[in-house]
């Protein structure tokens, strides 16, 4: 699915994705500035920061929705800065959306099959003429989609209209759609948004299972019960700049990070705030 792998020399042999000094401006607003970090194969990396810090913008730059004005993004050492979204998908990077972008008026099964678009070999005329080869491929697509749906406990709603499902189920459908493509890197944009405690715990298990299956994960999340428990490495950004990077335990007690969150209007339910308070009060 992805093209020739060219590896960087030295200890970075494992680096899948590298952001090297990327930045972007919207009109007069510098949304992201001189951001650099690396993601290694098999990691689960969290990208956190206060609201408006630029996290989704970073994802949009990686996936080709926006073109960075500065810096480079490298995938297996290859420069993919500014490539169109479909090329990024070809390279093996898939994503989910903060707002859930499932195809309306289409079933769960159809939505998940969409994730296999690049795998399809049938040409347009084979589709028009309904050839045996085309029908065979369709069956394979359905089977593979059903396999993933079973793994995510969605098999019995396969024929339901995707957007009629409860929120948590819709998130799983979107995830199924990304997983069915067997990507190397999956980007999750606030996967826990709208989930209750139980569902969030289930999400943690799902994310770990994804990683165990060989997929590298990067996620943006506000729910600290997810971020602190499931990630290997965390990058913290504020006002578009990186302010800290490290393991969850380090980040939790990093004064710069605490200040960034404290500097916001207080949110009594912010788990990081609570974590901070707990530490302070301990």
């Amino acid at each position, binding site marked *: 699915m992805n093209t020739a792998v060219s590896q960087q020399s030295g200890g970075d042999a494992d680096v899948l994705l590298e952001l090297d000094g990327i930045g972007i401006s*919207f009109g007069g607003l510098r949304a992201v500035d001189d951001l650099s970090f690396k993601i290694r194969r098999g990691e689960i990396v969290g990208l956190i920061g206060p609201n408006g810090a630029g996290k*989704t913008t970073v994802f*949009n730059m990686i996936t080709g*929705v*926006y073109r960075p004005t500065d810096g480079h993004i490298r995938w297996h050492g290859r420069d993919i800065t500014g490539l169109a979204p479909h090329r990024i998908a070809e390279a093996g990077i898939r994503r989910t959306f903060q707002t859930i972008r499932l195809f309306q008026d289409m079933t769960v099964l159809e939505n998940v099959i969409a994730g296999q678009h690049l795998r399809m070999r049938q040409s347009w005329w084979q589709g028009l003429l309904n050839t045996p080869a085309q029908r065979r491929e369709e069956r394979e697509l359905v089977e593979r989609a059903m396999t993933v749906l079973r793994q995510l406990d969605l098999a019995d709603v396969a024929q339901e209209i995707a957007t009629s499902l409860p929120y948590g189920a819709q998130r799983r459908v979107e995830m199924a759609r990304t997983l069915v493509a067997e990507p190397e890197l999956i980007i999750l944009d606030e996967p826990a948004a709208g989930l209750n405690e139980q569902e969030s715990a289930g999400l943690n298990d799902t994310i770990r299972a994804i990683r165990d299956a060989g997929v590298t994960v990067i996620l943006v999340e506000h729910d600290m019960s997810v971020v602190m428990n499931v990630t290997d490495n965390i990058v913290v950004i504020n006002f578009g700049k990186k302010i800290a990077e490290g393991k969850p335990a380090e980040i939790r007690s990093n004064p710069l990070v605490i200040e960034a969150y404290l500097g916001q209007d207080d949110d009594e339910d912010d788990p990081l705030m609570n974590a901070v308070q707990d530490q302070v009060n301990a």
Partner: protein
Amino acid sequence: MDFILQQFINGVTVGGIYALIALGYTMVYGVLKLINFAHGDLCILGAFIGLTTLTSGVFGGLSTPVLLILAFLIAMIAVAVAGTLLDQFAYKPLRKAPRLSAVVSALGASMLIQNGIMLIWSPNVQVFPNNLLPNINWEIGGAHISFVQLLIIVGAFVLMAALYFFVHHTRVGTAIRATAIDQDAARLMGVNVNRVIAMVFIIGPVLGAVGGLFIGLYYRQTYFTMGWSYGLSAFIAAIIGGIGNIPGAMLGGLVLGLFNAFAAGYVSSSWQDAITFALLIAILLVRPTGLLGERVAEKV
């Protein structure tokens, strides 16, 4: 040189008419993001109503200038009413519907009005009396300008200046501009969006009615499909200038009028419209949002 000047005069005349009609398209689009396909037909309705006023004999006792003014007033009022009814019945119910629904409704309204005109008046060409305006021509530098041309140029510019002043220096005008930029924000600032929309469906048609009646007086004829053809040209003018942009519509109208006039001098008239479309396509390919066009940012 006289040729260029003559074409310039012709071009500004027709350009003024295009601009008056284009303003209706652009104002509705600015506020509702809807292409009012029925607008051209409303404008030519103005021509028909004006013609009927002028020839009906009911006002036989009046002197010609007064009769003309009356014709304009009646046309403006009637078309303003028609425009308001159009919005109430064909567009307002679809405010929250997907864009395509409103497009189809607009097309349906256009068919309705156009064929309504055909059925009420006649499918044949309607001729304007030729004694309405003084048959005076002035010579300027080798070219000549007729009374009607001067009337149209002056009339169009006066109205455009009035509109510009209205939109930029009155509270209602500012409310219209605010609504065009961001309807929700305007509402939050206390703007009565429904009243703004109602105003737009009065101002646009009023200007358009004047434009339509100008067409009738200039060419001394009108027929029921003229709304579509002039409407399309004016619509192209609005797009060239950047749809939703009021100065853009004025500019676009003049650009198109001049372009047509000069092209007519060099290209046979049967190819003229093709050149107009080619111009439009060329402009859109280079500047996808028109000359003065809007920049739309989409948040992902």
